[in-house]
């Protein structure tokens, strides 16, 4: 069967899920408080975006997520490069990192609250710190797994340490780093939403929590759809970055 016909089928399958949703709600099989009809939800979503503050809230959440992601990526790459290039640092820090790694990132929230109180900057720090792992560990690996002969070549050419990190280390680590940044962005979105729920700071997380608490289910579903759209936008963005930053790898898959 030709390619576009299967694509069309795939769209039809997705549409039929929404049609089923509409039929189920219209027939009254589920109470609308638990599952509002898709048309009502989308109408509500549209109203919230154009006349309400949903767009502003989404942007607030996305802004927080992106700042956290930037900090996590930068910190992960710099720390990972330092640890990856130094055998000594690896020796001393690996057991500590292994010890900290299995902790769920969101457990940093109670600690951040206890240490710094309910500040917006505390939340940003928790997001950045919690999402650093997916970048840090692949970066360490990428920088430490450089062909030994390249070390020798660099030494003979008199390349400085910093230049070595940029000219040999970074290109070698880049595919791992970009893959790590993808996971990190997903983690950032999750920690951002949970952080907003826990610290009641303005954003989609707080909005959907309040919607659920006051049984405004169309608002709740609108918020969930928006978060899903943010997730889709994220993976689209990362696919783009992957294609630009590591074209040789994107060609393989």
């Amino acid at each position, binding site marked *: 069967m030709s390619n576009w016909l299967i694509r069309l089928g795939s769209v039809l399958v997705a549409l039929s899920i929404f049609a089923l949703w509409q039929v189920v709600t219209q027939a009254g099989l589920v109470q609308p408080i638990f599952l509002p009809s898709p048309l009502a939800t989308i109408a509500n979503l549209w109203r919230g975006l154009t006349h309400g503050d949903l767009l502003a809230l989404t942007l607030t959440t996305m802004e927080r997520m992106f700042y956290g992601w930037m900090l996590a990526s930068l910190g992960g790459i710099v720390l990972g490069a330092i640890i990856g290039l130094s055998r000594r640092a690896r020796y001393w820090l690996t057991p500590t990192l292994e010890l900290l790694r299995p902790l769920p990132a*969101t457990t940093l929230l109670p600690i951040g609250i206890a240490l710094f109180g309910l500040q917006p900057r505390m939340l940003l720090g928790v997001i950045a710190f919690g999402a650093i792992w997916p970048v840090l560990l692949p970066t360490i690996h990428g920088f430490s797994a450089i062909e030994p002969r390249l070390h020798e070549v660099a*030494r003979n050419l008199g390349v400085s340490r910093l230049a070595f990190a940029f000219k040999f280390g970074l290109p070698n680590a880049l595919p791992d780093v970009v893959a790590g940044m993808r996971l990190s962005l*997903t983690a950032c979105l999750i920690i951002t939403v949970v952080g907003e729920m826990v610290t009641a700071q303005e954003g989609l997380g707080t909005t959907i929590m309040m919607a659920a608490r006051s049984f405004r289910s169309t608002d709740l579903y609108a918020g969930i759809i928006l978060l899903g759209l943010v997730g889709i936008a994220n993976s689209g963005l990362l696919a783009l970055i992957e294609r630009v930053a590591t074209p040789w790898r994107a060609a393989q898959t």
Partner: protein
Amino acid sequence: MFCSTMSRTHADFLTLVLPGWLLPVAALVVAEITMRATGIQSDGLALPSQIATAWLELVADGEIFIRSAETLAPIAIGVLIGGMLGLLIGVWLGLSAFAARLAWLSIELFRPIPPVAVIPLTMLIYGIGVRMEAAIVGFACFWPMLLLTRDAVADVDVRLFEVARILGLSRSSRIVKIALPAAAPRIFTALRLTLGIALIVAVTTEIAANPFGLGYALISAGLSLRPDVMYAFLAWLAFLGWLLNVGLTALHRRLFGAASEGTSP
């Protein structure tokens, strides 16, 4: 850098004599000494010795085990239901490329929804408790299990299926005798990743909404100004996470041999 041929320095000598895990231990000792010496008072900090005492008390009155059970129960239920559904659909989509391509858009639309966005919804439906948390864990586990199983089954050598057809195996025994055993190592890896995600999601749900389990113990200890208890629970959580990963990795090696281990994505 470049230290492989460098002359043995003092620091290199240290790495020969001392193990790397000494660093966190030393950090704890230094923290204890400096905090005692400076007499620092903070709602967010506790002496390592106080944390150890708090942990022993939690073990003695059994609270830490009750809290762990409260976290592990929804994980078990959620992984069982969500993971099982993901496994079944994953096998189906792995066997039929046609079905996989038809389902593609629907998966791409629903998968990016962050599991934590479902927390308020399950709260609305189930209130608080085990069912609500299990539902979120199930939702979170469903997607990675589905995708990894689909890929694992789709990558099974085509020649195995040709042999199966020649032998005249029925469709069900082709699945049970060929597809599943061949994909088993990677499905097990998927299970290991899924369980890790389940632990994260369960604890996160407890921190954000559900007043049960280790996550709630963590945040309520922090909010009631008991940093020693908070850090004791945190250390226990790190230990559980480590145990889960190490245990499943060892089980993987035992079941499938060391060679199959590098297949994790």
